[in-house]
């Protein structure tokens, strides 16, 4: 019950924002328009899912932005020039993520520090790979990202697939349940004989995997990479998870919400440019709109709280 309610808010925010965008710019209400509105949200959605995997086990990842940048650099160079080597590097990066998860748990390190440190490391590797912007997207990724399915644009299809697949994986599957349990009550999981180290490594590994997908998607859209290409994703992804109804601790996350949160963030940017504000205030308006979207939630979460209070007496 409660879970369903949690997901209603993000959906509502998105719907309101989409309505506003359509009102300001009716042209957006088309196959072409929807694709333009949402296609750059696909890599953000993937990065948000990656962040969600980490937040699911009560950690936070400050390196996802630089990691996606690093992946983008690998994709635009090695994966394009020597696909096998490129794939091996990306696989190693995922393993590195999993290893970090294990290390963080075994040595009881604060994840925020380790990932902060890793953000420098990934950033450094990216700069080494591409000191200057360049590289090229492998053709197949480019094709995949620009394919035009009938009726519904690729961006929307991709978001639905991402949301659906991760929902099945995290919310429905037995393994996903265990992963969320680590966030809810790690001790209980350990007491039942599960290896929390392995589970944490798994969650981090999944984050790495979705980070890799995000980077590849991004290059598919931009056609080339640079070392700073996705720095913003760190904050965007955290904001996306929260907008989607996730919480920092307690394993309370929602993959569908996360994807919707990412879409909302992307849409908020578009909404602003349709408003044609003075450049002085365009940056401030980004803040204002975030505040507004979250304030809309307030009305509903107030009601939600009352409802819960009434229920629990």
């Amino acid at each position, binding site marked *: 019950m409660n879970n369903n309610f949690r997901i209603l808010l993000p959906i509502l925010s998105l719907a309101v924002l989409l309505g506003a965008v359509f009102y300001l*710019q009716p*042209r*957006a209400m088309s196959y072409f*328009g929807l694709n*333009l*509105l949402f*296609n*750059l949200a696909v*890599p*953000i959605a993937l990065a948000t899912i990656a962040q969600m995997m980490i937040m699911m086990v009560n950690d936070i990842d400050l390196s996802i932005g630089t990691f996606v940048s690093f992946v983008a650099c690998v994709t635009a160079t090695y994966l394009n020039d020597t696909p096998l080597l490129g794939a091996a590097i990306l696989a190693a990066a995922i393993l590195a993520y999993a290893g970090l998860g294990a290390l963080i748990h075994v040595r009881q390190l604060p994840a925020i520090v380790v990932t902060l440190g890793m953000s420098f490391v990934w950033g450094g590797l*990216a*700069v080494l790979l*591409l*000191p*200057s*912007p*360049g*590289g090229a997207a492998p053709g197949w990724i480019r094709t995949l990202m620009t394919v035009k399915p009938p009726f519904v644009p690729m961006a929307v299809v991709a978001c639905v697939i991402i949301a659906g697949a991760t929902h099945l994986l995290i919310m429905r599957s037995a393994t996903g349940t265990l992963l969320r349990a680590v966030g809810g009550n790690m001790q209980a999981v350990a007491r039942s004989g599960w290896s929390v180290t392995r589970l944490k490594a798994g969650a981090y590994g999944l984050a790495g995997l979705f980070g890799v997908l995000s980077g590849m998607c*991004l290059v598919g*859209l*931009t*056609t*080339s*990479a*640079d*070392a*700073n*290409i*996705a*720095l*913003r*994703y760190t904050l965007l992804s955290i904001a996306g998870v929260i907008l989607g109804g996730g919480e920092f601790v307690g394993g309370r996350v929602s993959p569908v919400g996360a994807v919707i949160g990412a879409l909302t963030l*992307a849409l908020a*940017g*578009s909404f602003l*440019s*349709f408003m*044609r504000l003075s*450049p002085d205030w*365009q*940056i401030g308006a*980004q803040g204002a709109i975030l505040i507004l979207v979250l304030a809309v939630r307030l009305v509903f979460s107030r009601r939600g709280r009352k409802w819960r209070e009434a229920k629990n007496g």
Partner: protein
Amino acid sequence: DTSDKRIALSNNYAGNSWRQAMLQSWAKVGDKAVEDGIVAAADAFTTSENQATEQAAQIQNLILQGYDAIVLNAASPTALNGAVKEACDAGIVVVSFDGIVTEPCAWRIAVDFKEMGRQQVEYLASRLPDGGNLLEIRGLAGVFVDDEIHAGIEQGVEEFPQFEIVGSVHGDWAQDVAQKAVAGILPSLPEIDGVVTQGGDGYGAAQAIKAAGRDTPIIVMGNRQDEMKWWAEARDASGYETLSLSIAPGVGTLAFWVAQQVLDGAEVPKDLTVPFLTVTQDTLDETLASTPEGSVANVEYSLEDAKAVIADAK
């Protein structure tokens, strides 16, 4: 006739004086053009962080809004190619300047950043024929402009082998970052004879060197008013001489006129170059007088200037 055409400026960063001067020049020239009925709109759009992804989204939104031309200072020469291609496919004229894009369908108003780096060393060679030790202050790692200017400086050092770069730091094009980085590396460096910069970091370097109690070397400046003022004061006090060079923020207005010309049906080559703005010992007072306090030396371009630049390129 372009009186019903709408032109948009897509800018990826507003967080420094250079970009602010650029936006102001744009507003000044653009508003005038709208008033005069030359174009229907000249709107400026800016994103918060210097990020290609955000700018790509912005360009896509501009496409949706149906602008006829997009003037672009790009966050990345390549990472926007996808969005730029989409714009071209939608029949929109794309003109990039300062931060140019490599997508062939777009126009480029380029500054020879490499030459800007090389000339700094050349100037130092004219001042210090015996050569000496150089400190290089770079910009933001991984950004095109930084790499280009750096390459130019390296080329200059090759050309004038009497110079050696003994230290290199990243100042991220921010005064305080440069000051901090220079202060950190100075203690381990020998005597410095010259400082080569990327613009806007000279004042910070001068401060750090002064704080370390060293003699001020020849610091190549970047046209910031505070730098030039410092330079003028040092000149009056002790005859300090140096050179200052940077790209003028007003280049955006040149791009505006180029876009207007393309929309007007004029035949414009895809690649145009503009000279960067150089301030020498002789022009210092004059430039300083015309630069608002705390801003950047600037020139704005007119339709005639644009036509001249186009004609030159043919």
